[in-house]
């Protein structure tokens, strides 16, 4: 009987065919067993899954040379070619995929907001639901550490740097005039509506070699690749109105957005420290066109805005106040293409054109200036492997600035400059493992104006210290040509320079994030000039120097308390510099040692409402007191402001929104203006520099009309 069975068994197996058994064990590089890996011969059905001992074994009818594949989630797919008869007792080690959620991130100096990044500090929604931000993305970024509160200005001041040291890029292409002009006691806003952007990267130092002409910081904005649906957005606000529309086709889409702001009704109800002749009025329009090609994406972005106002402002030297009138037209166009060339190569190219025209009258002066600027860039990416990526490219900036000056004695003085810069950059991302990564690059810039070449190395490293935490280091050299207020009078200068040294610790756990970042920044070749305001008679030099050092803390928790999301930022800053008209090293008036910001949001389901607050504290700012010795020798009292907002969903598509800035009515002082000459009693009169209004009230109604009847503008408020 046994024999019979054996015969049948032999017969059966030979009848089925000569099969080969393929077997082995799968582990990771730390020799830990991998359970559930898919092991198979390419192009066949033959394969198996590893068991709880990491072992697999399967039979195949295939013969000769075959390709064995082993794949598992979060690991790189293993490939082995060979004769099937040798595929027994294999010991296969899978390497971790470095592109997974838990891999180390090169994050020193960088804050990201968006869906794609692994270390989101802000969500896109936050730009607009932060109480103090009033829908301005710059306002939301001011709640992050590393920024200082300069309430009357509204631009970004990063780590002891002035506002010119931060550059803004849209889809990788430079924006030359990112802010709307305003009076000197009301904060400006970013020109661009958050509505059209879905990714924001804010770097407070140590950024990539791709970006130059920024001493302190870059802000990268990306327009939406593909809108979700066709819709119309209508907004009616206490200060104006907005209208947006999106149309989609098979391969392309268009979004347009228009807004009109007029502060006349607001100024007639609430008292204002300015004496308005023509109210603040701005009209703007933006459009984005996107087209998908077979291997890439073309985006065209255009924005136009016009701002006018005329007023008389208080002035200590002028009893009747100082007359100021402004008329600004700004046109920005940006086109970019991103495409895949083959499996390993991709390309990005872009172009931007800015045309900005300002006409302003200050007292008896009449100034007209025109800026035409162009930026082009071409960048290649070579993905050599999952662990080694190479980027390189070239770019060219051209600026033509012309000014026309008139006053009681001078008529029609014309002057200006051309500031053209060519640059090349190369950078590599190297992942040694899931826990250790480097980014290293270099940037070369040639300034046609100064006939000088600069070489700026950049380096950063990140190391994962535990499952949830990592440390990063970054170093970089950064160059920037002086700004137009200097270059228009003198072009015999050098590029200004900074070096950044950054150490960062980050802890990231399930919607909780903690960051601490220490930095040291050294300034060289800063421009100095001899008069209070530069002009043709001033003497200029590059002898200015300075430093900034400090530590930034950030904590965000969206998890611990149900329906509550909050973040806290604290920045400690020590900085001194000698530049512009400074007679000695001093702490500039835009840099204060302590800045604290707390933002909280609470979603109340029963009320279909989100309520939020935002509190900012900033220690006193410096000013020069003529009664004391020295320059910038005194400090104002500290700055405090609490803002609250409330958004109520009338229906999923109709939102009522209200906010109050500085609800407690703190009497903030931004500085003091002293009289040029003493009064009859031999004293210098002074005037506190106060905001145009202490508080600001905002009410708006936002209505979205779309197919799905669900989307709304909550993310645009």
């Amino acid at each position, binding site marked *: 009987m046994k024999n019979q069975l054996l015969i049948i068994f032999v017969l*059966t197996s030979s009848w089925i065919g000569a099969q080969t058994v393929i077997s082995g064990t799968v582990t990771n590089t730390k020799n830990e067993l991998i359970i559930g890996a898919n092991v198979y011969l390419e192009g066949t059905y033959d394969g198996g899954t590893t068991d709880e001992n990491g072992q697999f074994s399967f039979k195949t009818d295939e013969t000769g040379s075959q390709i064995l594949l082993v794949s598992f989630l*979060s690991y790189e797919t293993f490939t082995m070619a060979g004769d099937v008869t040798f595929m027994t007792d294999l010991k296969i080690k899978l390497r971790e995929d470095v592109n*997974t959620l838990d891999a180390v991130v090169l994050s020193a100096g960088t804050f990201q907001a968006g869906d794609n990044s692994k270390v989101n500090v802000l969500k896109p929604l936050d730009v607009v639901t932060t109480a103090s931000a009033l829908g301005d993305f710059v306002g939301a970024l001011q709640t992050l550490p590393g920024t200082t509160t300069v309430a009357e200005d509204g631009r970004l001041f990063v780590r002891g740097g002035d506002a010119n040291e931060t550059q803004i890029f849209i889809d990788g292409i430079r924006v030359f005039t990112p802010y709307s002009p305003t009076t000197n006691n009301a904060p400006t806003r970013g020109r661009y509506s958050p509505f059209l952007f879905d990714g924001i990267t804010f770097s407070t130092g140590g950024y990539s070699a791709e970006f130059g002409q920024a001493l302190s910081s870059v802000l990268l904005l990306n327009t939406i690749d593909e809108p*979700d*649906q066709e819709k119309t957005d209508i907004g009616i606000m206490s200060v104006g109105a907005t209208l947006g529309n999106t149309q989609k086709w098979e391969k392309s889409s268009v979004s347009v957005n228009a807004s009109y702001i007029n502060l006349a009704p607001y100024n007639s109800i609430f008292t204002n420290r300015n004496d308005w002749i023509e109210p603040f009025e701005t009209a703007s329009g933006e459009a984005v066109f996107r087209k998908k090609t077979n291997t890439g994406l073309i985006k065209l972005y255009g924005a136009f805005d016009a701002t006018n106002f005329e007023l008389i402002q208080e002035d200590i030297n002028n009893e009747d106040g100082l007359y100021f009138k402004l008329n600004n037209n700004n046109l920005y166009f940006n086109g970019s293409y991103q495409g895949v060339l083959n499996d390993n190569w991709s390309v990005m190219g872009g172009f931007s054109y800015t045309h900005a025209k300002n006409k302003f009258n200050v007292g008896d002066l009449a100034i007209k200036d025109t800026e035409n600027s162009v930026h082009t860039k071409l960048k290649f990416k070579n993905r050599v492997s999952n662990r080694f990526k190479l980027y390189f490219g070239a770019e060219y900036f051209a600026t033509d600035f012309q000014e026309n000056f008139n006053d009681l004695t001078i008529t029609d003085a014309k002057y200006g400059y051309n500031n053209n810069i060519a640059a090349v950059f190369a950078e590599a991302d190297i992942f040694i493992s899931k826990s250790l990564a480097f980014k290293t690059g270099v940037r070369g810039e040639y300034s046609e104006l100064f006939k000088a070449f600069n070489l700026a190395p950049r380096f950063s490293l990140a190391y994962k210290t535990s499952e949830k935490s990592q440390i990063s280091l970054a170093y970089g050299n950064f160059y920037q040509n002086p700004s137009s207020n200097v270059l228009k009078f003198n072009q015999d200068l050098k590029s200004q320079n900074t070096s950044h040294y950054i150490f960062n610790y980050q802890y990231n756990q399930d919607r909780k994030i903690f960051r601490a970042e220490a930095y040291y920044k050294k300034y060289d070749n800063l421009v100095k000039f001899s008069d209070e305001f530069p002009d043709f008679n001033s003497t200029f030099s590059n002898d200015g120097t300075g430093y900034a050092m400090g530590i930034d803390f950030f904590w965000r928790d*969206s998890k611990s308390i149900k329906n509550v999301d909050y973040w806290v930022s604290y920045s400690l800053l020590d900085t001194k510099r000698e530049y512009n008209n400074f007679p000695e090293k001093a702490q500039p008036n835009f840099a204060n040692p302590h800045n604290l910001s707390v933002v909280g949001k609470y*979603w109340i389901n029963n009320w*279909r409402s989100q309520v939020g607050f935002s509190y900012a504290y900033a220690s006193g700012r410096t000013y020069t007191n003529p009664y004391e010795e020295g320059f910038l020798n005194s400090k104002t009292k500290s700055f405090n402001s609490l803002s609250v907002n409330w958004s109520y*969903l009338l229906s999923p598509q109709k939102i009522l929104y209200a906010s109050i800035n500085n609800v407690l009515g703190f009497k903030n002082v931004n500085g003091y203006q002293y009289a040029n000459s003493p009064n009859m009693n031999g004293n210098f009169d002074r005037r506190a520099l106060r905001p145009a209004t202490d508080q600001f009230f905002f009410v708006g109604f936002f209505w979205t009309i779309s197919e799905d009847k669900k*989307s709304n503008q909550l993310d645009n408020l």
Partner: protein
Amino acid sequence: MKHLIIIVTLLFSGLVSAQSNYEKGMQKAFELWGSNPIEAANLFERIANAENDNWLPAYYAAQVNITSSFGEKDEQKLSAQLKKAQDLINDATAISQDNAEILVLQALLHTAWVAYDGATYGMTLSPKVVELYTKAKALAPDNPRVVYCNAEWNMGSARFFGQDVTPYCKDLEKAVELFANFKPETPFHPNWGKDRTIMILESCGK
């Protein structure tokens, strides 16, 4: 007696081998699905690799990954699983464009993120989901899965906004009707969802 068994077995296996490899493989994968979804997903993936012009194995491999990610609390695991599913959906779409079944699966993938963290993903992914169902409906208005998945999604959103879900019960009733008349193209074409539709309908409006 033993001989007889052996002969019958041999005969039977001879009969089975008359089926194509594809049919055997798919059948095996469906059998595995209940007991060992990982194995099933792996097998579907192997078939997908061997059958370059058939969208079904990739579709099912994606579906196994998506279905098992509902209820997953570990974000890393969820993200890895859904990334895998997305790759498979991309493969399936490359083979069969404008396919309502694949669009529904894509919508379910987004829904898995929304289910994991509505506060973070709801606002950004909801419009995408709605757009997918709109497109699927235009392509295949009588596909029961399009109707039922869309209804279930709408009910979830209505609950989130504290609104009445009863208007969508009608859609479910329609889906049940469509299920009754639905004939898959081949035995391996998608034919799931009837039981769940009836289950939700039973509790509808209650």
